[in-house]
């Protein structure tokens, strides 16, 4: 087995008296889709926050490609090649897809105009169109404000943005929760395409059949700890649910 790309060891996180994570482990291998599942309150969201720089663990360590890292801010995580798409997408609805894709990373014109902060909109539109095309996203009008797009298209813009800037790992927090059947299939297709580009995907989801359909591996959190790891090809929904609810007991079964 290759060495892990991202590894969390013994992560502890308290919120007041609530122990959200009690020594949780988590592993991402290069170029895989790994699903992170767990019941409500198992600590999924907390773990994702800590791994994407939106919080600090009280104890434990995070290793990126073998070396310990401190993800003090989301920007620090992004700088290290780790991007996160949250459920609320964090898009600017009045701006178009291209502006959102390049938000905070605008391409400026060469020369004096660029020094004055003039945007190279053509280059950004071109780049955005290519980025969307690469993920198989059909964005018919690149000049349309994101607010005018459908839910699936918005999701695609958010995912495309994170993929465009992630060099190592993309976290997708419930990417299909608000989508219809066709749109969900598209997003899952996008997830596979991201993996095919050599970027690991961490998929947080409640939808077990979906997890089994798209993920290579599954890691299960329960009560703030990792309780099981599965190879997606050799497990079933029943087994996953058993691990989530504790019916299988708390021993790790490494696939």
């Amino acid at each position, binding site marked *: 087995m290759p060495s892990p790309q991202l590894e969390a060891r013994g992560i502890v996180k308290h919120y007041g008296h609530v122990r959200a994570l009690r020594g949780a482990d988590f592993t991402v291998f290069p170029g895989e889709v790994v699903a992170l599942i767990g019941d409500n309150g198992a600590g999924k969201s907390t773990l994702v926050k800590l791994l994407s720089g939106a919080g600090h663990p009280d104890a434990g360590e995070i290793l990126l490609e073998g070396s310990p890292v401190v993800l003090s801010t989301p920007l620090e995580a992004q700088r290290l090649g780790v991007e996160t798409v949250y459920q609320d997408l964090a898009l*600017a*609805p009045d701006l178009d897809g291209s502006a959102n894709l390049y938000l905070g990373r605008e391409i400026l014109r060469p020369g004096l105009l660029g020094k004055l902060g003039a945007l190279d909109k053509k280059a950004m539109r071109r*780049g955005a169109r290519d980025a969307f095309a690469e993920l198989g996203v059909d964005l018919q009008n690149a*000049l349309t404000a994101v607010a005018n797009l459908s839910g699936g298209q918005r999701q695609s813009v958010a995912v495309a943005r994170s993929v465009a800037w992630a060099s190592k790992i993309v976290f997708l927090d419930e990417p299909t929760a608000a989508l219809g059947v066709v749109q969900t299939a598209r997003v899952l297709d996008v997830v596979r395409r991201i993996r095919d580009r050599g970027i690991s995907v961490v998929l947080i989801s409640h939808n077990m059949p979906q997890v089994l359909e798209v993920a290579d591996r599954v890691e299960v959190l329960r009560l703030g700890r990792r309780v099981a790891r599965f190879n997606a090809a050799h497990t079933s929904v029943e087994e996953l649910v058993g691990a989530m609810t504790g019916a299988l007991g708390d021993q790790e079964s490494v696939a």
Partner: protein
Amino acid sequence: MNTAEEPLVADATDSSQTTSMAPPPEGVLRRLGSTNTAWIFLVLVGICLAFSIMKPHAFATAFEARTVATNASVLIVVSVGMTFVIITGGIDLSVGSVLVFAGVAAAEAMHAGSDRSIHAGWGTIWLGLVVALVSGLCWGVINGFLVAVARVPALIVTLGTLGAAYGLSQIVTHGQDLRGVPAKLASDVGLGRLVGGIPWMVAIATVVTAVGAAVLYGTRFGRYTLAIGSNAEAARRAGINVRRHLIKVYALQGTLAGLAGFLALAYFDTTTISGHSSDNLAAITAVVIGGTSLFGGRGTVIGSAIGVFIPAVLASGFVIIGVQSYWQNVALGVVLVAAVYIDQMRRQARSRQ
């Protein structure tokens, strides 16, 4: 820096093959057509036509156009800054007071810089301009700091600085308007004309509007302004320093209010301390009529300039056709509420999709 950038640029050659992208000119036109700006411009044209038909010899004259435009210049400069502030989702009530304060500060500085300031040369006038801009900038930074860092609502912050700047202006002048504005400033800038009969005031306001529009539409500063107004949290997560940018936006507004104060000084040949108490509402009205959303995230500088002209043209037209000029306020109120109503309808239509 990242893996995506290479393919982004490398595939540039086949960009012409895709039909889903509209060529820029068409895109700009469609964008214009889809905003309130185009509509509000038509409204302005319609008002002008109506008055022209009613009184062609009095209204549709170069003299009238020049008068209306010159009168509007000071407010246009303020409204350009107000556009940026409102696009961030903020508001600035202090502009009129800051304008007065900057005018007073400039007048005092020019007076101190020259014993007989009325005969002062361009050196003194430039000094006055710098003092006006810097004092406006200072008020803007105070506003921005309190809004962005201290997190006091913009309405309250600028209500406070509205009172403070106005009060300080009165303390400095003992409530008496300062005279002794350099004659050159008043005659050359305030009343002077460029080649072709275009007043200096109008030329300056036009340049400010053009630069403001270019900054909002075509620069990173403008893009951040729109993004923060659209979704501040998204901007923050994208790595934009939202606080610093907000301070910059209020500083820009303050500086433009300072410039407006200097222009008012040139135009009226005196500080007009009590003459700007409703400039803030006039500017906000112009910006909103011009299609900028009070909820932030959307707006145009050109629209705001047009929004200044609608009340200005109404006022001048009502006088010419012999209607009591007070009707202007009634008409303006209707236009303002209609503009916001249309914005609301558009938002609802959008969120239904």
